[in-house]
């Protein structure tokens, strides 16, 4: 495998304190078996799965508990053995927020009994079936986006480059780093499997430069694989170069158009964890049962990376890491920049949960007072989407939707760079997040009112036309009557006749 350095500088971005030393000081902890599992039926972007187990039923590790629908879906498996306690609605963390969704709750029996060997289906020959097998294996994008992997590997768009994303630029998160160090060969193998599926002419593994051990391991594995076309790009350590759009720009110089996904212009990005999961599925027949989760922050007794069964309640995972230490100010799911704070630790780890931060007071912002924007422009310099956050801020606070469009609100990736660099401590990301909701609502209303207006206008036109037609008719009659003496006489007589009739009718009815 060839190592190279892309000759582009990332747009914007920040060098941030990494906070990864503690969690990378020891190998990934394995063999953790939780007491409970909470398996959400929807852990991917797409329609929910259909449960196939009943209350009280015993399930084994690796057994499908919810089946994938045909497309844009991924099956859910029991990640340890136990009994189904309930199928009920629970709060579950998803990509951007907590939401309520149906879950299968399993009381684990601690035996961690797997399905009998050979129960899993073998890797098929036919590409169509291979995709189905990935869907049934429950594999989704493990970088946090949880997009069903099969959908991204389908034959829709010809793939120019398969990008294996091991950049992991966000502070605190180190699960990909540790996985690359410990399972580089498996990741390379998974990447090659995906490349074959995509018939991609090129495959680039991208890793941030601050992970020398991971790079070393990957190079070694690449060499061992004997595939000469694999390349490893070392990426400057700048947040958020690991974002899909940023990474595509960095590696290819091409920008992903605002209205498109990277895959639509031929760049397929897959996370290293996903590559590992594909390898497990294809070579060992094992579906996605666990993922590496970074447990970090000053508020945790033993920060580390843990191979965590999907569905483990967060509290149990924290317990496994020695519990909380000192005053925990916030419990954050995801990294410190794009993650969000959880209201409690009863929710489960899902396929998309890459990192858990128990943050002490000193690690997070405490003073929420803000000053006026001094137009210093730091935010614009830091913005990877090349927006002008200070202008967006003004437009958002004025509710000026035309300006919000012009300044590219929807192009904001909510990376938080502008926010942390702002000397006036304006919560820019929060403002933009809220503005996006308001803006979407406004646009819906706009569409609605445009439709209503159109309908109304058509209605009015019809009415006007009717009225006009009536007038024309009257005019015509009047005209005929006025120009034609006998007809006039006739009309007068007819009118007199009508009046007489009416009168006689009136008297009749009395």
């Amino acid at each position, binding site marked *: 495998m060839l190592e190279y350095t892309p000759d582009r500088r990332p747009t914007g971005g920040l060098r941030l304190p990494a906070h990864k030393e503690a969690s990378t000081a020891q190998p990934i902890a394995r063999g953790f078996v939780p007491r409970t599992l909470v398996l959400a039926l929807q852990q991917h972007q797409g329609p929910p799965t259909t449960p196939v187990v009943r209350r009280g039923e015993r399930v084994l590790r690796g057994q499908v508990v919810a089946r994938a629908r045909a497309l844009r879906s991924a099956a859910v498996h029991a990640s340890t053995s136990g009994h189904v306690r309930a199928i009920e609605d629970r709060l579950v963390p998803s990509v951007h927020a907590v939401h309520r969704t149906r879950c299968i709750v399993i009381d684990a029996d601690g035996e961690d009994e797997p399905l009998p060997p050979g129960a899993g289906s073998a890797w098929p020959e036919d590409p169509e079936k291979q995709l189905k097998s990935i869907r049934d294996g429950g594999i989704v994008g493990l970088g946090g986006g949880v997009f069903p992997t099969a959908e991204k590997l389908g034959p829709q768009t010809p793939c120019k480059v398969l990008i294996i994303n091991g950049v992991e630029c966000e502070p605190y998160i180190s699960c990909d780093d540790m996985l690359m160090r410990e399972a580089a060969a498996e990741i390379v193998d998974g990447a090659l499997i995906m490349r074959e599926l995509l018939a991609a002419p090129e495959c680039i593994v991208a890793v941030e430069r601050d992970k020398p051990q991971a790079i070393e391991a990957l190079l070694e594995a690449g060499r061992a694989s004997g595939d000469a076309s694999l390349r490893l790009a070392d990426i400057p350590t700048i947040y958020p170069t690991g974002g899909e759009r940023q990474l595509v720009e960095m590696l290819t110089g091409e920008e992903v158009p605002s209205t498109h996904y990277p895959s639509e212009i031929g760049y397929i990005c897959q996370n290293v964890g996903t590559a590992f999961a594909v390898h497990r599925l294809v070579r060992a027949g094992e579906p996605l049962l666990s993922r590496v989760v970074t447990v970090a922050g000053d508020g945790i007794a033993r920060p580390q990376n843990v191979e965590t069964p999907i569905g483990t309640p967060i509290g149990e995972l924290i317990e496994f890491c020695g519990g909380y230490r000192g005053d925990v100010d916030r419990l954050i799911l995801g990294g*410190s920049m794009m993650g969000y704070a959880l209201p409690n630790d009863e929710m489960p780890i899902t396929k998309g949960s890459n990192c858990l931060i128990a943050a002490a007071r000193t690690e997070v912002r405490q003073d929420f007072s803000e000053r006026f924007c001094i137009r210093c422009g*730091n935010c614009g310099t830091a913005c990877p989407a090349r927006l002008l956050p200070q202008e967006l801020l003004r437009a958002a606070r004025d509710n000026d939707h035309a300006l919000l469009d012009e300044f590219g609100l929807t192009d904001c990736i909510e990376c938080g760079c502008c926010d942390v660099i702002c000397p006036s401590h304006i919560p820019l*990301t929060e403002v933009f997040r809220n503005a996006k909701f308001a803006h979407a609502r406004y646009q819906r209303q706009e569409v609605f009112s445009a439709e209503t207006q159109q309908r109304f206008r058509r209605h009015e036109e019809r009415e006007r036309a009717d009225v006009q037609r009536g007038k024309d008719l009257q005019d015509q009659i009047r005209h005929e009557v006025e120009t034609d003496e006998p007809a006039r006489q006739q009309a007068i007589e007819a009118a007199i006749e009508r009046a007489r009739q009416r009168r006689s009718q009136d008297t009749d009815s009395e």
Partner: protein
Amino acid sequence: MRFDVAPGPHTAPIASVPITMRRVLYALAPAALAHVWFFGSGFAINFVVATVTALAAEAAVLRLRRRPTRVPLNDCSAIVTAALLSFAIPPLAPWWIPAFGAFCAIVVAKHLYGGLGRNLFNPAMVGYVVLLISFPAELTQWIPPRMGDLDYQHLAFLAHLSYSLTGALPTDVTVDALTRATPLDLVKEGLRSAQTYSEIRAGSLFGGIAGRGWEWINSFIALGGLYLLYTGTIRWQIPIMLLVGLLFPATLLWLFDPDRFATPGFHLFSGATLLGAFFIATDPVSAAESDRGRLIYGAGIGFLTYCIRTWGGYPDGMAFSVLLMNSAVPLIDRYTRPRIYGRD
């Protein structure tokens, strides 16, 4: 266990307005000390008067506008304005000169536009220009630097203070006897009366490159500017382009006719060139917002300054150039908007 939630990003901010402003003050400190060493305590007196007036005016206006006073007052921006103004005012000035200048800067230039962050014009420069137009005589009372005139008698601190407060000078001294033209004045007048540049330069007020004393003060200002660049308090676009905008025409014309035009070195170390490049034009509020816009903004200020110095009616043109470019900022911003990622 339950937790409080708060919006992300979940990290402490890495910059703050008071820290930025304080850094600016630190960066100005060496130049201020040099100023006092070369020109006497006048600078210190002016600075104190300007600071007190600026803070009092800011507090009063905030009170009038029914705004909280604590947060805006402790951001140090009023002190920065006062310091910049003090560098522009001659050391020998009655107390109401810095007071009036600071008052105009804070009340007219800053708060009538809505306070820090909303002002269209650079407050310190507005204050200075108002003074320059209203009290041209007082603003040209520059005194020579130490070592400029060898037989020159410098005023002691108390004499400075008493002149500032009451206008009284020691019995055997008059204002006329104290004041001298600045190097920029001399060059301008000299060239106008058909002296060659090298003849003018032979005068005792000149040092190695530019005016005696001024060279040093401006070197310290450049040092402060480098500190600001190094700490990331300012970015390079404005200062570098300002210097380019000024030195490029200066070099061209000087090469063309070294007798009739001052050297680029003289321009660099005279008047407000370096102060303007690193401290005045970089005021974020009144500058262009995008990096590209700032290139144009900086270059414009430099070029205008050169034009005013060479052909205009004032010996230095930094203040006017800054204000002119301030008024061009909305236009610059409109045409230098960065292209959004993924859009045409």
